[in-house]
């Protein structure tokens, strides 16, 4: 196939990609995102499948059978954890506007610029072999397709650089990526068009690989059964269907771990999975769709590998190119071209996303912070401190960009893209010829795996410190370089072979692939073991040894003001912004006063404060101090920082501190509230108790006063008549007898009164002795009526009694019930009509109670008095012989048995006194002390 045709087709394909990307960006600008669905998201994640997958998997399968699988098992396992891991990474990255892996690590460890830079360097160096892998794949397959010579391994090491296909592949990919990903500077570092194109590429490479696989399985051979049958007779192919004896479980374990880390920490995976994520719900789709994609693209790996081994003689054809070589050999250029485009899309997808992700990291975490640092150093020297004509005082003004950091950033990114691809090409030239695709890729995987302790440790362990992460990363990276990177150079002959075999300077213990005598492991497992051990070990030990003291808040804000955090153009804050912040906590007037005072105090026409109303560090500090009074220091710092620098990411410790502080304040105020409520309640109770006591005291006074009054009344008569009798011994017998009768009556009244007072006080204090027995209330009523017969006869009144034949007995004190009845009957006799007095007593069953009504036909009781008559010493009638205690005592007794006691009366139409006693002795058992 002529090379110009391949180039033209490749160019057309890239053109289509570009069109899709352009369309995607336009749609985004129009607010109608094309990538906002879970399927596109999952397809963009499939950028994981590169030309390593496309060509390298077959190569590895031809060598080790199922040995290509761990690289896909790892991500499949990890996908199960995406539900919380990836979602929480997306959430926190969006909140803190994290735009790269370096950002993520730096953010976790106190915005350490050094750490961000280190991560960037590791990422770039670690990924270079991977880029080389793509270049190698594209140029190898280009040569194969172009020449049709499948058995000839291209010898680029001998090819002059300028005639090397790989160089032109690298340069054209760089140009394409620059046009593709850095046309404009996106504040959020999101590239919707790119994601759309990547999703399309994922479809293309899947379809192309499936086409190749179907052709091999069903075109060259007669289906899977035929393949397996023929493989059984070929020793090389048959071996692929068994787990080979040299397959090490250890190696499988490390490969799965590697690929689990890779799917999270490869810069391009972080880019598409986190930075480019539109909606975290898309993760839900990706969790099943992405593993399904991996399964689909691996479906024909073994058939192609087996087919290649069956068709080609042993060692003639590089197994990495089987998928392309088989259609060519079979004379199917169209299928071969399809496969090539698939491989091209796998490679370009990876290169585009990877270099864009790296470019963001390099510009934001490495170059800009360095320039700022350099500028600050420059400013300290007197010569360079003369203000530039324009843009004085703005970050990076001395570099001639006058504050337009966008142009500078774009330039850095474009340079990075070209630089990374050229580095990849250099690696390809130096080391890329020897090892297979997969071996190169695994070296890159091991490099990004070095981020795992710092990131995962940082997520799970509060104790991880900046220094711990720094030392761990450095140690892991050093071991990686020594045990994995350098050996690839050595194998390609760039370094002396003796370095591998005998160790540096002949020291056997330092042999890079048997470090400290550890052998029996493959190079990847060996390198991973040592690098992870040292990385994680250093991270933990250094973190535990030195918890760095928290820097004072003001210093932090001050540093951010000078723009040292590396985010371009966001480090200035206006006085107005601070005023708005203050208003929210101090009120409009107070905030205005504070700021105006400050501005007046620092009146200086040349200061940026006066001219542009840009706040200086001192004002920021003052605002923070003011806010601290309102919301606590940590929160104040964070709030001011959020205004000073919108991109201020939060340190986990700080979030914890805010929460702690807030919850402490909350706890205090809750406690305070609770205490004061308790106090109020106690006060209310005391007041109530005091009022009750005062009431009781007043009642007691009244009672004593009443009792003394009631006692004095009969005593007065007794004394008066006694003295009259004593002084008048010659009184006529009739009068004398009348007076003596009065004395006797009044004495009886006195006795009765004293008894009732005692009775009442016993009832009130609950010290009455109750004789509880089965009581027939009917008998009580009848007996009481009989006892009062004489009384009624004297009054000339008629008493009628109505008692039903069978009344259930109740548990009560019979004498007390008789007392109640006698009280009611004597009252009725006293208050019934003087002429033709009528009193009726009726006993009946009402619900669960027995009810007694005593009705008279007297004058009745006015409504105002109906409650009063139950009070002590409140007598109903005039000048009678009552004590004023009869009804209160009766009511106490009935209440004791759980009944009710009341009166109904219409004035001038008599009164009915009623009481009930429950048939179930609830009340009797309650107070009975029998």
């Amino acid at each position, binding site marked *: 196939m002529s090379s110009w045709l391949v180039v033209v087709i490749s160019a057309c394909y890239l053109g289509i990609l570009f069109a899709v990307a352009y369309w995607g960006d336009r749609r985004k600008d129009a607010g109608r995102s094309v990538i906002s669905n879970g399927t596109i998201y999952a397809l963009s994640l499939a950028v994981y499948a590169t030309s390593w997958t496309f060509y390298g998997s077959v190569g590895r399968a031809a060598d080790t059978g199922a040995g290509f699988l761990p690289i896909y098992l790892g991500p499949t396992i990890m996908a199960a954890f995406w539900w919380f891991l990836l979602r929480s990474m997306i959430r926190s990255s969006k909140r803190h506007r994290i735009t790269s892996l370096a950002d993520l690590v730096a953010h976790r460890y106190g915005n350490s610029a050094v750490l961000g830079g280190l991560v960037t360097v590791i990422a770039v160096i670690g990924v270079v072999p991977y880029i080389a892998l793509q270049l190698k794949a594209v140029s190898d397959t280009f040569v194969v397709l172009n020449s049709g010579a499948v058995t000839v391994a291209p010898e680029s090491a001998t090819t002059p650089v300028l005639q090397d296909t790989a160089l032109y592949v690298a340069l054209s990919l760089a140009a394409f990526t620059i046009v593709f990903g850095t046309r404009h500077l996106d504040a959020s570092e999101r590239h919707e068009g790119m994601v759309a194109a990547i999703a399309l590429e994922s479809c293309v490479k899947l379809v192309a690989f499936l086409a190749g696989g179907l052709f091999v399985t069903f075109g060259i051979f007669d289906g899977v059964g035929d393949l397996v049958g023929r493989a059984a007779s070929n020793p090389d192919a048959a071996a692929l269907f068994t787990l080979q004896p040299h397959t090490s479980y250890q190696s499988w374990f490390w490969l799965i771990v590697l690929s689990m880390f890779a799917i999270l920490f490869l810069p391009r995976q972080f880019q598409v999975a986190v930075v480019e994520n539109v909606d975290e719900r898309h993760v839900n789709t990706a969790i099943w769709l992405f593993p399904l994609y991996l399964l689909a693209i691996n479906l024909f790996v073994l058939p192609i590998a087996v087919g290649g081994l069956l068709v080609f003689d042993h060692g003639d054809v590089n197994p990495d190119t089987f998928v392309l070589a088989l259609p060519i050999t079979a004379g199917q250029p169209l299928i071969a071209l399809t496969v090539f485009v698939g491989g091209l899309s796998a490679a370009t997808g990876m290169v585009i996303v990877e270099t864009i992700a790296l470019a963001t990291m390099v510009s934001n975490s490495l170059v800009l912070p360095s320039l700022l640092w350099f500028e600050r150093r420059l400013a300290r020297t007197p010569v360079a401190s003369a203000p530039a004509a324009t843009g004085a005082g703005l970050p990076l003004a001395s570099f001639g960009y006058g504050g337009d950091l966008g142009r500078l950033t774009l330039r850095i990114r474009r340079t990075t893209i070209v630089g990374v691809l050229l580095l990849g090409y250099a690696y390809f030239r130096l080391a890329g010829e020897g090892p297979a695709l997969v071996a190169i890729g695994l070296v890159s995987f091991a490099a990004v795996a070095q981020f795992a302790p710092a990131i995962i440790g940082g997520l799970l362990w509060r104790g991880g410190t900046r220094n711990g992460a720094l030392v761990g990363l450095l140690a892991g990276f050093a071991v990686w370089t020594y045990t994995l990177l350098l050996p690839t150079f050595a194998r390609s002959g760039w370094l002396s072979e003796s370095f591998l075999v005998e160790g540096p300077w002949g020291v056997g213990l330092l042999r890079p692939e048997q470090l400290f005598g550890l052998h029996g492991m493959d190079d990847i497992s060996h390198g991973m073991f040592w690098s992870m051990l040292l990385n994680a070990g250093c991270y933990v030990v250094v973190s535990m040894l030195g918890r760095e003291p928290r820097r004072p808040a003001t210093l932090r804000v001050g540093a951010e003001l000078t723009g040292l955090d590396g985010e371009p153009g966001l480090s200035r804050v206006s006085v107005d912004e601070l005023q708005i912040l203050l208003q929210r906590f101090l009120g409009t007037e107070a905030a205005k006063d504070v700021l105006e005072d400050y501005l007046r105090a620092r009146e200086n026409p040349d200061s940026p404060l006066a001219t542009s109303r840009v706040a200086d560090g001192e004002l920021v500090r003052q605002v923070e101090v003011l806010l601290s009074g309102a919301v606590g220091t940590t929160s104040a710092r964070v709030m001011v920082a959020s205004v000073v620098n919108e991109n201020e990411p939060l340190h986990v410790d700080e979030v914890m501190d805010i929460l702690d502080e807030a919850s402490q304040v909350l706890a205090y105020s809750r406690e305070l509230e609770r205490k004061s409520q308790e106090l109020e309640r106690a006060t209310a109770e005391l007041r109530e108790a005091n009022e009750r006591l005062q009431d009781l005291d007043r009642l007691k006074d009244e009672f004593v*006063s009443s009792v*003394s*009054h009631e006692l*004095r*009344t009969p*005593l*007065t*008569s*007794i*004394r*008066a*008549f006694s*003295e*009259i009798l004593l*002084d*008048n011994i010659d009184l006529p017998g009739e009068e004398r007898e009348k007076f003596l009768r*009065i004395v006797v*009556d*009044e004495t009886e009244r006195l006795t009765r009164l004293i008894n009732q007072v005692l009775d009442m006080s016993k009832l009130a204090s609950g010290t009455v002795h109750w004789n509880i027995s089965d009581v027939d209330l009917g008998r009580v009523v009848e007996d009481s009526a009989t006892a009062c017969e004489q009384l009624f006869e004297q009054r000339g009144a008629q008493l009628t009694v109505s008692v039903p034949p069978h009344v259930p007995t109740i548990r009560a004190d019979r004498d007390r019930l008789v007392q109640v009845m006698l009280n009611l009957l004597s009252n009725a006799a006293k208050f019934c009509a003087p002429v033709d007095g009528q009193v009726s007593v009726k006993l009946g069953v009402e619900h669960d109670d027995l009810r007694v009504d005593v009705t008279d036909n007297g004058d009745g009781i006015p409504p105002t008095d109906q409650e009063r008559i139950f009070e002590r010493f409140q007598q109903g009638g*005039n*000048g009678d012989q009552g004590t004023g205690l009869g009804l209160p005592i009766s009511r106490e007794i009935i209440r004791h048995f759980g009944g009710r006691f009341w009166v109904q009366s219409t004035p001038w139409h008599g009164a009915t006194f009623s009481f009930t006693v429950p048939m179930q002795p609830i009340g009797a058992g309650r107070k009975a002390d029998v």
Partner: protein
Amino acid sequence: VTSTRVLIVDDEPNIVISLEFLMKQQGYETATAADGRTALSEADRFRPDLVLLDITLPELDGFQVCEQLRAEHGSDMGIIMLTARGREAEVAKGLALGADAYVTKPFSTRDLVGTVHEILGTP
């Protein structure tokens, strides 16, 4: 010759009987009332020289009666308050309202008669 008239006001019938006996023994003409309102109408009708006035009364209490008697009949009418409530505050209140003397129950018949003579200015 008009005899001295005494109005006895008390809601206890037995006390009224004893007071009536005592006053008649002194040769006074007596009238009785068992409540405050009757006391006022009896005072209008009977024109007593002296009123023996209980404080605890139905309708109008002794203080109110005392006040009205003073308002309607001037200071010529003698008023002796009788009460079972012997508190100082009540004594002071009764005297302030125009009572001439205050006798607590139970009283000594001789003391009472002495007080009556004193108020009436009789030997």
